[in-house]
């Protein structure tokens, strides 16, 4: 991809170029999506350095998977998100997580949302404990839609659901969270 590459090149075009060996094209994809992927990972691991390492690995692994990648109606960002989630599972398994992840042994009631290295006394423990006690889908939609403030269509693409499903899921998740917070606050 030369200097004449326009900003408005679609993801599909960039992916095709990257698949045929254009490193700059993949670099452009990186610059487009490094922020949301980093923010997602940062939210999950809490530590900036770990988030940087994992973010870089997500894009490396995505590049290595490019030859077999086909859009199939799902955007590239959703693919990156899946890679990031799998990377996080591996990350926690390799660290023998104090903070278990869903695919690891998430035990009911454990404060799984208390990300490593960020347990400060001034944190809103009630909200974190309440979040950790919710079903995993509820936790994820709250992270993506609320904490990261992703628009609903993007959350739908990432989670592989319809927009209606995401709105309903968010509604139920926030109601459940509110109820849990009230219970925790009363303790």
């Amino acid at each position, binding site marked *: 991809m030369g200097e004449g590459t326009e900003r408005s090149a679609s993801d599909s075009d960039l992916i095709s170029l990257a698949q045929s060996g254009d490193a700059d094209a993949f670099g452009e994809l990186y610059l487009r999506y490094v922020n949301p992927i980093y923010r997602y990972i940062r939210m999950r691991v809490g530590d900036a350095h770990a988030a940087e390492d994992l973010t870089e690995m997500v894009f490396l692994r995505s590049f290595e998977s490019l030859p077999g990648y086909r859009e199939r109606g799902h*955007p590239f960002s959703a693919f990156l998100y899946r890679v990031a989630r799998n990377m996080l599972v591996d990350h926690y398994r390799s660290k023998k997580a104090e903070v278990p992840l869903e695919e690891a042994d998430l035990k009911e009631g454990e404060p799984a949302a208390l990300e490593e290295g960020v347990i400060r006394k001034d944190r809103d423990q009630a909200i974190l404990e309440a979040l950790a006690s919710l079903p995993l889908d509820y936790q994820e939609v709250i992270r993506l839609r609320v904490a990261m403030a992703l628009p609903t269509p993007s959350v739908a693409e990432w989670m592989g659901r319809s927009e209606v499903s995401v709105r309903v899921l968010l509604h139920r998740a926030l109601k459940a969270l509110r109820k849990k917070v009230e219970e925790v606050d009363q303790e």
Partner: protein
Amino acid sequence: MTRNRGEVSPELLDQCMTEVQLGRGRIEASSSQFPEFAGTLSTLLGTANRIREELAPEDPEPAFVNTSHARLLNRIQVSRRGRRQVLPKQLQSARPIWRPAYALAVILLVLGLLLGGAGVVKASAQALPGGSLYVVKRAVEETRLALTWSASGDAGLMKAYSEERLSEASAMAAVGRSDDLGLALAGYDDMIDRLTALAETSGLQVGPGSLVQLQADLERHIEVLQGVNSHSPAAAQVHIDKAIEHSRHNQAVIEQLVGSGNPSDLAPGQQNTPKGPAGKSDDDRGESGESPPEPAGTEKPHGPSPWARPRSTKTKAP
């Protein structure tokens, strides 16, 4: 699941949350705009605010982005150079070479399938999760789905297969095979999701692919699952509870679809929610302004996402 009168709808909650996130309104303003739902809206948006204050992640440092970008390009170019160093002769030798023995093996395989395949397919219909023919059974089902040409045909098959998964789960519960029960219910969840998506877009008014019929079917499925749950071991109940929750979620989705856009449901003074049934095009995103303040995306389906950041902008947290 029925919504109580006065309970805020998912669309309204989403709309108000977007307004607050984009800085177009405060929680108090949203609540006062919809007085009938003020209490609930205020509470839910306040809960969301607590989450955002606690968990909203930071942007990466520009220095990291630039360094990482350069490292990534360097590694890509190094790996490309490495691949180019593979001599054509070496590459050719790595390709499978067609040999007469392979042709004979393929012919024998095809003959075997033709002569014995029909029997295998028939036998697989009774297979249960964990059995050797279960993979064949599921493959046959997917093949039949791929070969149907109508939405109603698809819907009929999906309904049958979802109920077959429930039967399998019930059988697994009876013999205490919790892992295999989980496998069956994962298949049930998947089939129900597909059937819900089909009902959402097909426009069928009657039959298995209609929203009304699906709602009734889900209610029945939940009853079946609850019945199975009552005499299942604890390990199995985890899977069954998840399947029940999944079905209830799909019921709630259907309720939203069935109930959307009906003016008689709106309370006096309530603003029409802009969202309609699922399947709206990307162009409709703009009217609610869901995107953060970024350059508008292209019209292509998978062009730059509205929230993909430009190179040099350090974004503010929402």
